[in-house]
């Protein structure tokens, strides 16, 4: 059978790296995947060199609207190293709480998207409903639903009052119960199991070799987490477990994320109970001394990396960002090899690429010179129908 090429995407550019794939197909089997990036390249790194340190903070928040707290945390942690200041202990705890709330919201959002991809829209609606509770909490603490603007260089902007803490504890109890239910769904529901188990397997050696990060590598049994290996904020004081699953398939990655929600809930409870008192911010000079710093943060999708170089002026000399999805692209290409076309949506969703960027699929059958365009919705329907007809392999 001739090899057929399909370009997928890039109609849903999300994040810094929206993606378009060119798939090589042998019948129903994907034999090669080649990424093309750059559809949402906004030139942020160059732009930041023309902004002051305070303005660049808002720019960094708008790199990604879903993991916005991770981006600002990484930015302020790195900038604080450049400025040689340290945030007060209470501010560090507030950063942990808001980061973990953000992680819960991101993972719930992702679980909904995955459920939608496998044709389980009820679960999609459920998770997005529960996500609203987290967003309400975040709005109560920070005043905003999506871009929180809580971090600033030298501390945080808003304090958490005892009343807020009580409300947060109640929501955590509710979410714990719901998350345990989702875990049961993921483990027992036949729809989920049939579509996710043994799909898109990433072996531990491949995961290490291709430098995967975050839940993608932890789903392959490699125990690595920036919060544990290279702790920032107050993560060295808050106890938690690094979740790993050994199977390396899409189901393992799902379970890693669900278990991480449970861990995050416990971390938030601990941080609320053990939050030290005192100031929440310190004064920071306008200009940092010349120098450079590196910051690494465990975003919901994995390792987020910032590098800032200062030349002593009010503006950063160089501002470098590496987002977790870019790091996971080589591993994703490996996972896509050897799967069925019908599994593409699930496997791409399994690395959590900030809403799969595959809103449109263009199929080219080289042997017949035929072209046709598919939307992501049609690819999803195709995959659902294919599974109806073929059942479980």
């Amino acid at each position, binding site marked *: 059978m001739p090899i057929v090429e399909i370009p997928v995407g890039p109609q849903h550019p999300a994040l810094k790296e929206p993606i378009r794939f060119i798939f090589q197909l042998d019948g129903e089997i994907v034999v090669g995947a080649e990424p093309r990036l750059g559809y949402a390249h906004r030139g*942020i790194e160059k*732009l930041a060199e023309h902004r002051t340190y305070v303005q660049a903070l808002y720019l960094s928040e708008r*790199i990604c609207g879903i993991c916005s707290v991770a981006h600002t945390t990484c930015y302020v942690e790195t900038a604080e190293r450049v400025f040689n200041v340290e945030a007060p202990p209470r501010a560090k705890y507030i950063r942990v709480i808001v980061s973990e709330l953000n992680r819960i919201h991101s993972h719930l959002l992702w679980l909904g998207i995955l459920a939608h991809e496998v044709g389980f829209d009820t679960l999609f*609606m459920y998770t997005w*409903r529960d996500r609203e509770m987290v967003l309400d909490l975040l709005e109560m603490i920070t005043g905003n639903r999506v871009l929180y603007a809580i971090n600033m260089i030298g501390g945080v902007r808003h304090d958490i009052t005892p009343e807020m803490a009580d409300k947060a504890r109640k929501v955590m109890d509710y979410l714990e119960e719901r998350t345990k239910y989702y875990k049961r769904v993921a483990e027992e529901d036949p729809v989920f199991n049939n579509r996710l188990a043994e799909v898109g397997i990433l072996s531990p050696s491949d995961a290490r070799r291709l430098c995967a990060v975050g839940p993608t590598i932890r789903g392959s049994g490699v125990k690595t987490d920036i919060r544990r290996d290279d702790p920032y904020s107050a993560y060295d004081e808050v106890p938690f477990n690094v979740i790993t699953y050994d199977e390396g398939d899409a189901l393992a990655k799902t379970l890693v994320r669900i278990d991480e929600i449970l861990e995050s809930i416990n971390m938030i409870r601990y941080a609320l109970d053990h939050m030290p008192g005192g100031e929440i911010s310190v004064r920071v000079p306008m200009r940092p001394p010349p120098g450079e710093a590196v910051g690494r943060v465990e975003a919901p999708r994995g390792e987020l990396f910032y590098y800032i170089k200062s030349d002593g002026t009010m503006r950063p000399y160089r501002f470098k960002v590496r987002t977790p999805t870019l790091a996971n692209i080589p591993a994703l290409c490996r996972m896509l090899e050897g799967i069925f076309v019908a599994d593409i949506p699930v496997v791409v969703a399994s690395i959590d690429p900030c*809403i799969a960027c595959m809103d449109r699929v263009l199929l080219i059958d080289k042997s017949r010179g035929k072209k046709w365009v598919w939307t992501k*919705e049609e690819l999803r329907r195709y995959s659902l129908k294919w599974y109806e007809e073929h059942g479980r392999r």
Partner: protein
Amino acid sequence: MGLIAWARRSSPWLLHFNSGGCNGCDIEVVAALCPHYDAERFGALLKGSPRHADVLIVTGPITRQVARRLLRIYEQMPEPRFVLAVGSCALSGGVFQESYNVYEGVDKLIPVDVYVPGCPPRPEAILYGIVKLLEKARGAKNVEK
């Protein structure tokens, strides 16, 4: 014609297009369509293909790479078509103004009917924008933008 116009304003079909934004507006658009806010009570339904859509929702700054695709999608939509620009970036480029890879606003490329400001706008604001658009589609005289 009366029947088609009635159908259009009772059930506008939406096409959501992220033109290179940060996802913040996108999750709020999806949140507006989910049960908590429920845009479907106005008949609004998300569609995957421009050929089925009445309303194009654009979020995010227009990156250079995406501009041509945006025009192509707009041209594929059947008349009459409406454009809803959601979020500061779609309105003016937002924080990405002056960047070498971003156009300052959707209206530099295609005509926009309703602007929804905010970074990101709340789902309520997006719903308000959809309702304003329906009034406009109905041909109401005094529609404030």
